[in-house]
């Protein structure tokens, strides 16, 4: 046979074998993904996967796992030796090799946000790693796993726990940085949803671009979330925890929604406890105070979520009764007895077992107060302190100076007690000086827009503190002293 004929035969054989391999490949792929055989997971990357990822996933086949393992071992070794500069790259490779394996994304993001961040002493370094963890989930993980509830839960948790709570010594830096970034994106303290949905100026367009492209947030969903759970303080991390959990509730159908709902109701509680920013410290740390006006919306949230949940509705109802018990004494401490009474009634009505012995609202509130006082976190300490200061100023306005003195003394004692309690972690846990809190809280109370005091009481308090209309305590260079010693009432 001639050489040319040989070549043709080989070529035809190659084509035939390729076609046959194509046929077998489909069968093999079916078998690989069959849950009965359970050989491997086939990655469905969707249509928007970058070509490099699609190629890697197909070309490496079963070797992807081995390569991921090698990279994972290298990452662990480097981490043990305190070398973190490769971590972002290694995490990127590891996750890209197993893009639909949710746990891999979650573990890598957690490692950066939690394990690596705390290895650094400088808060700016820590913040960088927290951001890298968030970015890995938000910018990449959700792209390939838009329906994975675990990923939304984790993302929400980073905002709620890592940034929102005070367990990390750099938590104030995180909050300050986030508030700064969000203020820049919103162009002010609160997002203008109409402007964000339909920007009309180049500056608004730039900010919307930033919001969508960098923070991956949709103004329409933000507005929806704000209406349903808010109004939220979007400069604080818990609003974003609620946002991502709400997006998760929309997108996920994988049946593990209780974890997402938990993020929502826990963050809703926090958005009551520190629902308003009083002011920013010199380093940008927001100093917060409670916003008890949000209690009704938060309670509705608990009830709605427990009604919607099919997995653990009892867990949400249990959380709701804990929430109500706490709110009763917060309202009481803030001298809002009528609201305390209202929520106490609801508590007794919905959860009679948790109010044994039929106590009065006052007895219940005082009992809760004394039980909780030892374990108050910084935010809750602010709730109680501002509550006592409210009582102080109201008593002053009513010329009940002896009572006012009592509340001022109590606030002072509580502040000292907190100072002693946080001595081992003073820097990350300290709250502003009591005089500063008094001054800013007085500002809040004198501001008619906050609705903390009726106009008549504002006028009385101003008169009592010798403050002309329109002047704030700050302008006087300190808190105004009572103008005259009030008559002591029996």
């Amino acid at each position: 046979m001639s050489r040319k004929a040989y070549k043709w035969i080989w070529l035809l054989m190659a084509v035939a074998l390729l076609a046959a391999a194509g046929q077998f490949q489909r069968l093999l792929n079916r078998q690989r993904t069959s849950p009965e055989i359970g050989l491997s997971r086939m990655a469905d990357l969707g249509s928007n996967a970058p070509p490099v990822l699609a190629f890697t996933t197909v070309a490496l086949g079963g070797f992807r796992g081995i390569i991921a393992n090698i990279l994972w071992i290298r990452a662990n070794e480097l981490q043990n030796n305190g070398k973190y500069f490769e971590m972002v790259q290694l995490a990127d490779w590891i996750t890209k090799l197993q893009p639909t394996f949710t746990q891999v994304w979650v573990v890598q993001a957690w490692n950066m946000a939690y394990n690596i961040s705390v290895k650094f002493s400088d808060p700016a370094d820590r913040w960088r790693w927290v951001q890298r963890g968030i970015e890995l989930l938000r910018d990449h993980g959700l792209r390939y796993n838009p329906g994975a509830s675990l990923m939304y839960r984790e993302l929400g948790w980073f905002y709620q726990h890592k940034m929102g709570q005070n367990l990390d010594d750099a938590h104030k830096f995180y909050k300050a940085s986030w508030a700064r970034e969000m203020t820049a994106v919103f162009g002010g303290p609160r997002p203008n949803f109409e402007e964000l949905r339909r920007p009309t100026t180049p500056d608004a367009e730039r900010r919307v671009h930033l919001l969508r492209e960098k923070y991956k947030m949709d103004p329409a969903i933000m507005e929806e979330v704000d209406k349903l759970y808010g109004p939220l303080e979007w400069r604080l991390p818990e609003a974003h925890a609620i946002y991502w959990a709400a997006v998760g509730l929309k997108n996920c159908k994988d049946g593990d929604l209780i974890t997402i709902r938990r993020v929502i109701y826990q963050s809703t509680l926090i958005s009551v406890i520190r629902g308003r920013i009083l002011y920013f410290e010199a380093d940008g740390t927001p100093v917060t105070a409670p916003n008890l006006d949000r209690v009704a919306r938060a309670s509705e949230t608990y009830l709605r979520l427990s009604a919607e949940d099919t997995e653990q509705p009892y867990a949400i109802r249990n959380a709701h009764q804990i929430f109500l018990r706490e709110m009763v004494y917060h309202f009481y401490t803030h001298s809002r007895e009528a609201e305390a009474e209202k929520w106490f009634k609801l508590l007794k009505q919905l959860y009679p077992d948790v109010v044994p012995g039929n106590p009065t609202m006052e007895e219940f509130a005082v009992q809760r107060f004394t039980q909780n006082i030892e374990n108050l976190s910084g935010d809750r300490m602010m709730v109680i302190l501002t509550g006592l200061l409210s009582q102080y100023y109201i008593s002053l306005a009513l010329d009940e100076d002896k009572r006012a003195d009592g509340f001022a003394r109590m606030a002072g004692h509580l502040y000292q007690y907190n100072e002693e309690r946080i001595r081992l972690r003073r820097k990350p846990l300290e709250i502003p000086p009591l005089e500063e809190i008094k001054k800013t809280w007085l500002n809040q109370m004198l501001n008619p827009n906050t609705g903390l005091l009726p106009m008549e009481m504002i006028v009385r308090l101003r008169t009592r503190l010798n403050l002309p209309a329109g002047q704030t305590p700050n302008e006087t260079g300190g808190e105004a002293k009572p103008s005259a010693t009030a008559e002591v009432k029996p």
Partner: protein
Amino acid sequence: MSRILAIAQLTWKAAFRFRLFWVLVILLLGCVVVLPLLIKHDGTARGFTQILLTYTLMTITALLGFSTLWLACGTLARDIEDCQMQVVAVKPIARWQIWLGKWLGITVLNLTLLAISAGSVYGLLQWRARQLPPEQQRILRNEIFVARAGIKERAPDIDRYVEQVFQERIKQTPVAPEEQPQVRQAIREQIMARLQVVPPGFQRVWNLDLGLHKNFLRDEPLYVRAKLFAAKTNISGTYQGTWYLGDPRNPASRILPASLAGDTVHEFAAPANIFDEQGRVMISFENQSDTALLFPLDEGLELLYRDGGFGFNFVRGLLMILFWLALLAALGLASASFLSFPVAAFFSFTLLMIVLSSGSLSMSVQDGYIYSGGDPSISPASKVLESALLSLFKGILELVKLVQAFSPVDALSTGRSITWTQLARAFGQVVILFGGVMALGGIFLFTRRELATAQGTQ
């Protein structure tokens, strides 16, 4: 010598004839240009420089390493298989000269390629650094583009101290001979705890001696590298404390409050001039957390200081890489001395894989088992086999350790000094010892090989 050079020149010519040189130049320069565009980093200029330096040098080493093995196996085995060696061997040249000429040719080729690619990396790094703001440039200058050496506290003579305490103890309370090892061990642990553990509210002081280096360190930045472990983990994962850097009487001393994570290395800047006239530095740490903290004796605290510039350090690092490549060339040539090209290549790559997977071998040796999972009920034959394999692993690891002890890429990316002594040791261990053994074996086999017989692949 001229004969060896003539063979080296022929090897060079072959590299150009097969376009290997140009292909490698394009690949190496390609990776220097493309890698910075692809890699993801932690967002700092320092992190980017470190990862760029690490990945480019690693890629260059890997590319040159594989091409060296391939070339070394090919140049000798293919010459024999294609019967070209027979033409050379009949010339007035000894076999050892042919072997060494090929090795020299490959090594000089590697030197050239390494110089081109590493020169581009150096240029790229310097160019990128110049685009950065002055503060970032200062960080790079002090932490990456530098050769830093470290001093640790002089290690106490624990054995002598243990013996002294033990003798005093047995004078007071006699101990039965069979219990003496346990008593010694208990004393050792007590002493180690006293030296390493800092209870809450206590201080640990380190006295370091810069010696003659103090003369070169006036106004130069110093860095403290510390590692600690916590007796009890807490919820935040960090522990409060205060560093006292320098003798408090020294005006340059500084107090630095710190929040430190356990089980990790912390590196932070210390003020310049915290040493006294004799070059002594006092550093202390006060534990303000509610748990005991442990600073290991070996890596608990190290003071890093500038030992030289980046340029020479970089060159020393590259020379170490060249030594590795020279060893690979010797390995390839040695295997090609008695094997055909495909088998020699397979054999060399397998050996390389064993060296690279020494981590797994060391894990097995540490665990004390390979496949039994520590199950004592396995058959005696399996037990014997496992024990023999473990001994083999231990032997391999001992050898591998001698070669792997030098990691220039790691040192360069963390700004650590590669000293001339380390370089000389690397040359001795990698090139002279291991390369020499392979060269002797290879030359011996090649000299005894019958070139005129029909070759396997013909």
